[in-house]
């Protein structure tokens, strides 16, 4: 009969291996946590987030998304840039109408001038400008 010997692992080695795994996991998660906290929880949006609000006429949501998606290193695609221009167009339209009906025509004209600036950046969303004005001016 063949003599079979089983390789028995020393209990000390087993403890060391388990401890090593725990230590690696512990340091790994701590470093990830530090990195995540250091980066902050700034929301990130993609073109779909912008386009949904723009296409459904939810200009308030579009404005909110636009502001939350600001950062010094952020670059935007052309279609997102158009959506962002629409959001700022909406802000200026709100102010223009509020100042116009209150009789502050000088400031209303200044807001109207800025509306024109943003209107020139609307690109494929140019047709939305009339809708923004309709929502803001009449509701």
């Amino acid at each position: 009969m063949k003599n079979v010997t089983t390789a028995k692992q020393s209990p000390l080695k087993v403890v060391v291996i388990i401890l090593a795994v725990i230590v690696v996991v512990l340091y790994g998660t701590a470093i990830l946590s530090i990195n995540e906290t250091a980066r902050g929880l700034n929301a990130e949006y993609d073109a779909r987030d912008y386009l949904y609000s723009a296409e459904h006429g939810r200009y308030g949501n579009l404005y909110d998304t636009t502001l939350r998606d600001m950062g010094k290193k952020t670059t935007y695609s052309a279609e997102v840039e158009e959506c962002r221009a629409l959001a700022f167009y909406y802000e200026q339209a709100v102010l223009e109408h509020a100042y116009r009906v209150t009789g502050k025509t000088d400031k209303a004209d200044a807001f109207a001038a800025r509306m024109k600036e943003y209107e020139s950046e609307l690109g494929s969303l140019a047709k939305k400008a009339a809708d923004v004005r309709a929502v803001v001016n009449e509701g």
Partner: protein
Amino acid sequence: MKCPNCGGQLGIEDETCPYCGTPNAMAVQHQSDMAKYRAEYARTQHEVLENTSFMKRHGSWLVILVVLLVALVGGIVLQAVSWDIGYSIRENNAKRDMAADKQVLDGYLEQGDYGKFVGYYDANDYYLMSDDPYRVVRAAANSYTNLIECVSSIKDPDNYSFSPDSISYTCGYLAEDLNRIYTLEEQYSRNIGEYLPDSMRVYIDDIRERAGFIATTYFGLTQEDVESIPDMSTRKLAEIIEERVSS
């Protein structure tokens, strides 16, 4: 040592007297003792060798075990303070960047782009700084952006699928934002000099003017309502707004 029988000279190893043959009791005892000592010596030698061999086999693992236990304690401590470390890094980054970004923030304020100001300010974590001259302006500008945001949903509620509850919530938020804009000095009274330097008051005035016109144009408030906002509870203000926008 002498033989007790004949007085002949005996050696310690002599089991009997070489002269008269009498047995030597001392030699028997000696040999028994020697056998016991040899056995003890052998046992001790075996134990020493055994222990030395264990250390030889496991010494490096024991060192690793001790190092790992120290690392484990360090890891637990690091886990406990990881949020503080991350937060501190963000705060330091904000302080470092503020010097360079001050021009950008001031530019937005001068242009009246309060929305861009808030977006940029928040994206760069400047609210984490303890000595922040923009703090009050940021609070006002943030509330102003909420007013702008709500105009669309108030004027076009069908597009937002608003339920009556949603309108109530929105009016509640609007009331809180309007109240915040007109009671900033009260809210920041402890640190008003630090958080609202004189150079920033012009922006607060501008935001209040805009908020007032937005409130009268879109939320149905009168000029008298706006003027009494600082003295009115937010609940009362919310009720007025809800009543006016619903009619």
